[in-house]
């Protein structure tokens, strides 16, 4: 297999409860550190993933009826490449309504608004390099995030090839 395209991947599914956000962060941070992102980059990845997961907890499911039903989970997939890390955070919830997506286009808007909303997607799109939202009403949402590594040499630091 081509070394360049060979990937290492992880999948994690987790109950839709905010108490587990830090478990997810801890797992992601460990991996991001292993592939030698800088301290600053690790903390950007950490918060981007947290925001995507927090959105699932806050928006994706109808808690009173959905919680802990089969399939109603936070899904996280991590893929490690030579040139960076891809993290996909998904749900099988109601989907993002079109008029809600990318609500905060700039921070000025956020700061002057009376309702402090939309910072989550702002953080995701600004702290990660490539970001794709897939959303379909009734079928859920996935946020695909990629962050490139600036320094290629450190990749095998933790013995990960």
């Amino acid at each position, binding site marked *: 297999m081509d070394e360049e395209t060979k990937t290492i991947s992880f999948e994690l599914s987790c109950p839709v409860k905010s108490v587990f956000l*830090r478990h997810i962060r801890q797992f992601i941070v460990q991996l991001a550190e292993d592939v030698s992102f800088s301290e600053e980059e690790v903390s950007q990845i950490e918060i981007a993933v947290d925001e995507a997961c927090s959105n699932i907890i806050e928006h994706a499911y109808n808690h009173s009826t959905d919680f802990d039903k089969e399939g109603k989970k936070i899904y996280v997939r991590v893929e490690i490449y030579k040139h960076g890390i891809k993290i996909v955070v998904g749900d099988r919830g109601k989907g993002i309504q079109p008029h809600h997506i990318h609500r905060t286009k700039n921070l000025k808007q956020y700061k002057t608004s009376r309702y402090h909303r939309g910072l*989550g997607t*702002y953080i995701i799109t600004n702290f990660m390099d490539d970001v794709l939202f897939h959303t379909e009403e009734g079928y859920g949402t996935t946020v695909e995030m990629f962050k490139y590594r600036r320094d290629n040499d450190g990749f095998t630091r933790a013995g990960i090839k």
Partner: protein
Amino acid sequence: MEGFSIETLKEESDTSETKLLIRGFLDAHTVDHFERSLDEAQEKGFKTIILDFSSLDYISSAGIGSLMNYTKIMKDKGGELIILRPTDKVYRIFDLLGFSKIFNIKR
């Protein structure tokens, strides 16, 4: 292994100032606990609330949004919300998002 705690370091009724030590992770889970403590400090009539962030390991948009709200609430009341000595990690997040100029931060 709670991951979050708040401790009152100082309550001065003369200067009407209170200082809270915020430890651990301020995220969507712990923000309710955080806000309850700020509400309590306000109810007690403190005009200056100092948040000691030197042991705060992490903050997400939930915490930042809350700080935005309380900064405004305190200001509207003629009081002040001060963030004391944030860790480098937390300060960097504020800074990257442009909040280092909006919050009242004492490093």
